């Protein structure tokens, strides 16, 4: 019985226990390595995340104008011309909080001539439709709205002055990609 006990003890001590200890040690080493890797990757993640957030912020702020100006010359009706194109930033107080929010608008002022057989409002409506359908414009700006029209007399002819306005989108670049598709 003693021999049997010693035999079983020996088998355990020499065969099973070292194998288990090795596995435990390997696992510990792997755990330490993985913990190191994890903290390194998490640092990378934080850095990349900050970089992506900053680039995203700057990207949202950026409006490319050259393509818009080329497209503007394409969509302009013949009997209409612009007098002023500008970007206006309006500060608005949010209803829920007392924070002041900035909203950026594109303001387009122009003039059209009443031509026999064509109402001046038709040309303005055509311009609004064309601008809303223009990809370079609606990537960055919301639907164009009419602010006013005013019929006046310039020297010897009647002219109709108008102003259009469109709010700068505050969506993310991914949102813009979806909108452009």
């Amino acid at each position: 019985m003693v021999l049997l006990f010693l035999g079983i003890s020996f088998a355990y001590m020499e065969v099973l226990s070292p194998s288990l200890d090795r596995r435990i040690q390997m696992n510990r080493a792997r755990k330490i390595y993985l913990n190191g890797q994890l903290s390194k990757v998490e640092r990378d993640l934080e850095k990349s995340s900050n970089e992506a957030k900053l680039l995203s912020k700057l990207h949202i702020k950026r409006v490319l104008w050259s393509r818009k100006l080329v497209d503007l010359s394409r969509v302009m009706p013949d009997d209409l011309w612009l007098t002023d194109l500008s970007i206006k930033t309006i500060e608005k107080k949010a209803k829920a909080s007392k924070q002041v929010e900035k909203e950026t608008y594109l303001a387009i002022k122009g003039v059209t001539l009443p031509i026999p057989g064509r109402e001046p409002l038709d040309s303005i409506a055509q311009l609004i439709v064309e601008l809303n359908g223009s990809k370079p414009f609606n990537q960055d700006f919301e639907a164009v709205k009419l602010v006013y029209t005013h019929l006046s007399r310039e020297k010897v002819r009647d002219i109709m002055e108008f102003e259009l306005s469109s709010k700068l989108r505050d969506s993310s670049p991914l949102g813009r990609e979806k909108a452009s598709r």
Partner: protein
Amino acid sequence: MIIALVIFFIGVSFFFYLFLYLPKMNKVKKERGVISSLNGRVEKAIREVDELQEKIERFDKEEVNVDFFKRHQIPPERRTPTFLEKMNELVNRLGIKTVMVKPMPEEESPDYIRYPFLVEARSKYGEIVKFIDSLENSFKLNLDDLHIESDPKDPLWHHLKFTVSTFELKSEESLPSHEKGKVKGTPLQMVIRNDIKVNRDPFLEQELERGKRVAKVPIREIRRKRRPVLKLKGIIDIAGKKVAIINDKIVREGDWIVQHRIVQIGEDEVTTVYGRKKRTLKIESLLKSQQR
């Protein structure tokens, strides 16, 4: 005896299994669980880093223009002179009249410094588009507060005003991924795209663009309105010579009345010359009866 030995063997084996092997095995299993969870976390974090890097690269492709000065290795003391030199070169090549280039106060945020320059210029529309395209796509700068205004005194030349700026990131490590590891800055190349064509100048009345001062239809109306009013009341034959009563005045052939020369007096009409154009006046009562 044999039965006792078997029972003893089983008892001892069970003892070893229960009190020595099983706790160690449980420890191994637990560690394995922790390792697989760590593996999962590392893999997930790596995937997230990869996704963010892809996003950052996509931003680069879409030209989020940061680090203009760093990219071109322009030291802080050379930033404003270099910008002014390049701006001057660009406006000269495009034939743009620069009104003003003014460095504005730097704007500092925790992550970046913004260097804005206020630019005012006068130019034709086509050149404005090329100018803006070069700043956006060749210099890779950001344009804000754009304002284009037509000049009624000189309809072909428009007044242009905008703020051009660059964002310099504060951390060197947060340079766009394609710039990382570069020792030398990329050369500052200016490209003016001559293939940019504009259909028409949207700030110019199309009739003016075609070389006419005002639109066709209104000018006729204007000339008709401007033409002096002549009312032929009647024609009288006095001793074989005809005289006409126009605007209550008696006129003969060769006479002048409100810038019109009377060239011929007929039976029921008078021919006049106004400038270089002939104009025929009909007796008013006849006109009325014809209209009826």
